[in-house]
């Protein structure tokens, strides 16, 4: 059974209220490979990856260190180009995009959430969330309204003026989630989003992500080492030595 078939089958098993739209494929990877050059040697990182992710899905990407999880996430986020294969996201072949096309595409289609939040320490929560909107044509008033809505969604409306140093780890990650959501992207990519949090806070963040997936129909791909985090996803993909293995 191919991985894409596995995902499609699993999607039909989820409850009706949370049902992922069948055949509405958001992400399609066909024969994707990635190799890096180390001196004169070519090092394969990903080999022949074939995956389809439905719109509205929540996929956990697991595997040991060095298995290629982050590389795959980077390819999905348009931060890197595959060495071979076809990568289609929301109907666009992003593997054919130039660097500047990828930059514009990222701004409109992808939200990133990192393990260490990566907020700008000199900006308040609301200014951090506003950053992606600076790339749009929205007016200052419109940007403020979007920021307020995003912070409200993650439950941090009352912390808008606080700086990252004045927030707890969980709150910082919520701000990072608001920043990822504010431009209403098709895809949320999370790299170990709970890796720096205690269990209780991690569960809160995972619950929030689940809520975004189920209520806002956000498509999420999350890299994690933590099986309990993966339990919050609809599907789990396992990578080992650059190859996708059975779910």
């Amino acid at each position, binding site marked *: 059974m191919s991985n894409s078939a596995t995902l499609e089958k699993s999607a039909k098993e989820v409850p009706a209220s949370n049902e992922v739209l069948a055949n509405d494929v958001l992400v399609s990877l066909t024969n994707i490979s990635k190799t890096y050059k180390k001196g004169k040697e070519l090092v394969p990182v990903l080999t022949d990856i074939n995956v389809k992710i439905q719109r509205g899905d929540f996929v956990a990407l697991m595997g040991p260190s060095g298995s290629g999880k982050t590389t795959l996430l980077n390819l999905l986020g348009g931060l890197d180009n595959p060495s071979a294969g076809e990568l289609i996201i929301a109907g666009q072949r992003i593997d054919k995009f130039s660097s500047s096309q990828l*930059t514009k595409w990222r701004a409109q289609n992808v939200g990133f959430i990192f393990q260490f939040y990566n907020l700008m320490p000199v900006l308040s929560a609301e200014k951090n969330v506003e950053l992606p909107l600076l*790339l749009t044509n929205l007016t200052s008033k419109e940007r403020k309204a979007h920021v307020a809505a995003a912070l409200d969604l993650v439950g941090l409306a009352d912390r808008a003026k606080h700086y990252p140093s004045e927030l707890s780890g969980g709150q910082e990650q919520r701000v990072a989630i608001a920043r990822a959501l504010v431009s209403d992207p098709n895809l949320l990519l999370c790299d170990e989003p709970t890796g720096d949090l205690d269990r209780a806070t991690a569960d809160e963040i995972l619950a929030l992500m689940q809520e975004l997936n189920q209520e806002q129909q956000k498509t999420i791909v999350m890299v994690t080492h933590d099986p309990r985090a993966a339990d919050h996803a609809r599907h789990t993909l396992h990578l080992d030595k650059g190859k996708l293995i059975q779910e």
Partner: protein
Amino acid sequence: MKYFYFIFKNLTRKKVRTSLTILSIMVAFLLFGLLRSLSAAFDGGAEIAGEDRLVTIHKVSIIQPLPQSYLAKVQALTGVEKATTANWFGGYYQEKKNQFAQFPVLADDYFDIYKDLIKLPPAQLESWKKNRVGAVVGRALVDKYHWKIGDRIPLIGMFPQKNGSTTWEFVIEGIYDAKTQGADTSAMLFHYDYFDKSRQFGEGTIGWLIIKVKDPKQSAQVAAAVDALFENSFAETKTNSEKDFAKSFAKQFGDIGLITTLILGAVFFTMLLVAGNTMAQSFRERIPEFAILKTLGFSDVTVMLMVLCESLVVCVFGGILGLMLAKFIITGAAVEFAATLPGLGMSWKIMGMGLVLVILLGFITGAAPAIQGLRLNIISALRRN
């Protein structure tokens, strides 16, 4: 404009470092303003010197006198419209620190030859001509010493009078003003006859000749003719254009232009290293943050411009502060040194040059980190996080 808040917040992230960088740039441009203004003041005479005027001095040195009889011979030369004489007096008013230029001149011709630079009301000129001990003074002197027409001004001169006294008394009969910006109004002019007949030694000699030529294009030929006229005499001459004379006079104090250029060169080179290193360090500390910006969709060029903007803001802010402070100091000093260093002032030309340098410094110091920002690879930069 919408990025400016972010740029400003980044600049204020390390307030002490930013303040010290701004301060060092401010000092560099303060020095630039002061030294360039000083240099311009020394070169000021050459800048406004007339194309149609020549100055004849003794071939050996300006301090060697020439016979007064040379005047008539020069006036008779073809191509000479008018000629007059002047001497160095070297006196001071009340105290030695109150030194300014004083020249015994020929009242009939002096203002005519310099009519493009200075002006004296005709009635005052006439009064002066009638008073043997009369003098006319420039506006800068009047402003400094609060003199007025009719005041008796005693000067202690380096020339003793025949009665042994070194105190020379003059009556102010007129006040002359500048006709052209930068013209010197810090001198006192009095009658050569009074000076010549009263001094203990050197009677019948002059310091230098000022010649107005009929055609400025013929200046070189007239100068050569003057020097040829006195060749092999006991007092050979050297005739130059007034511009060259002013330049060589200023160079007696050293090549101020070269000295200031060398000092400023060293200052700006040091500034480039200091500010450039600070900008580079500030960029290095934030590489993961720039990577995040690129991840969010900020283009390579936008990141590059943000880095460049930070450098420009620091340099422009520090530079303008320095130039303004220099302008303030020079304006104050110009009043204080009006008599000793006429033409001292910070012109718009110097201000403009300063602004161009400020922007250039901003671009150069920001260039290296800006290019790094442009080329920053997101994945490698995020790995540093």
